[in-house]
C-alpha cells in the first residue's frame, strides 16, 4: 500500500506542446496561489518504467487535474490522436475508485459539451471550462479549489503575466526551449510560490 498522499499536491495531466504553454504557466501560478503544489510527470527521475512512475505520482498527490482541451489530432504529417491524457485519467479514476478518500480528480476542457463527444463515458462528470485562456484557468482553479484567504483572479492574473514574461529568461538559463523541462518546471513553481507568498502578505485576500 503506498503512503498517504501529500494533502496539497496536485498532479497535472496536461499536453506537453508549445501551444499549451501559456495555460501550463497559468496552472502552475494558479495552484501555487491557492496554496497547492503542482506536480508533473516530467519531474520524476528515470530508471523505472514511465507508466509505473506516473502511477506513483498520481498516488502521491491528493488531487489531479486532467486537461482534455487538446485531445484533437496533432497537426504533424501523420496526424495522430493523443491518448496519453485519457490514459492517465483512466488510471486515476481506477485509483480513486479503489481509494475514494485519498484522491479527487477534476477534468478541464476549453469548450463546453465537447467532452460528451470525445469521452462519452465521462457523461455525468461536468468538466471545468476554461475557454482556452489563462484567465479562464485561474478562474476555474478558484472554483475547483475554494480556499479562504485566496487572492482575487485579477491579482492572480498579474502574477501570471509576470511569470510568463520571464519564461524566456528561465528557459535560457536552463539551456532549453522546452517549458516542460524538469528544471524549468521546478523554477516556475518556486517563483510562483514565492510571489504568491509575497502578495498574500501584502494584499487583502478573498
Amino acid at each position, binding site marked *: 500500500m503506498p503512503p498517504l498522499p501529500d*494533502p496539497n499536491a496536485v498532479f497535472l495531466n496536461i499536453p506537453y506542446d508549445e501551444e499549451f504553454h501559456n495555460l501550463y504557466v497559468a496552472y502552475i501560478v494558479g495552484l501555487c496561489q491557492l496554496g497547492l503544489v503542482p506536480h508533473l510527470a516530467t519531474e520524476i527521475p528515470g530508471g523505472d518504467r514511465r507508466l509505473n512512475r506516473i502511477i506513483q505520482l498520481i498516488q502521491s498527490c491528493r488531487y489531479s487535474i486532467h486537461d482534455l482541451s487538446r485531445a484533437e489530432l496533432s497537426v504533424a504529417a501523420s496526424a495522430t490522436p493523443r491518448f496519453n491524457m485519457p490514459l492517465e485519467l483512466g488510471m486515476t479514476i481506477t485509483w480513486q475508485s479503489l481509494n475514494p478518500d485519498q484522491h479527487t480528480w477534476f477534468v478541464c476542457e476549453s469548450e463546453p459539451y465537447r467532452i460528451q463527444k470525445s469521452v462519452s463515458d465521462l457523461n455525468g462528470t461536468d468538466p471545468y471550462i476554461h475557454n482556452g485562456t489563462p484567465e479562464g484557468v485561474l478562474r476555474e482553479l478558484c472554483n*475547483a479549489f475554494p480556499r479562504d484567504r485566496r487572492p482575487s483572479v485579477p491579482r492572480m492574473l498579474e502574477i501570471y503575466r509576470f511569470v510568463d514574461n*520571464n519564461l524566456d529568461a528561465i528557459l535560457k538559463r536552463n539551456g532549453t526551449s522546452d517549458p516542460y523541462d524538469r528544471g524549468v518546471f521546478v523554477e516556475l513553481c518556486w517563483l510562483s510560490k*514565492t510571489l504568491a507568498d509575497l502578495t498574500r502578505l*501584502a494584499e487583502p485576500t478573498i
Partner: protein
Amino acid sequence: MPRPVAHITAPWPTQEEMEKSLHISKARKKALQPLVDEFKAQLSHLEEVSVASIAPEKRRKRASAA
C-alpha cells in the same frame, strides 16, 4: 450536474515544505532571486499608487477609525 469541488483541510504549505516537495537546489533559488526582487519593487510601487489614489479625506477617516 454539480462539479466536484476540493474540500481542502490541510494548512497552506510553508516555503520549506514546497521546496522539499520540489527538490529545488540552492543554486536555482539564488538564480531566481533577482526576479523576486524585481517583483517586490513592482509590488511596493503598486501599493504606493494604491495608497496615493485614495482621497485624503478618506485616508484621514480610515486613520482615525484605526
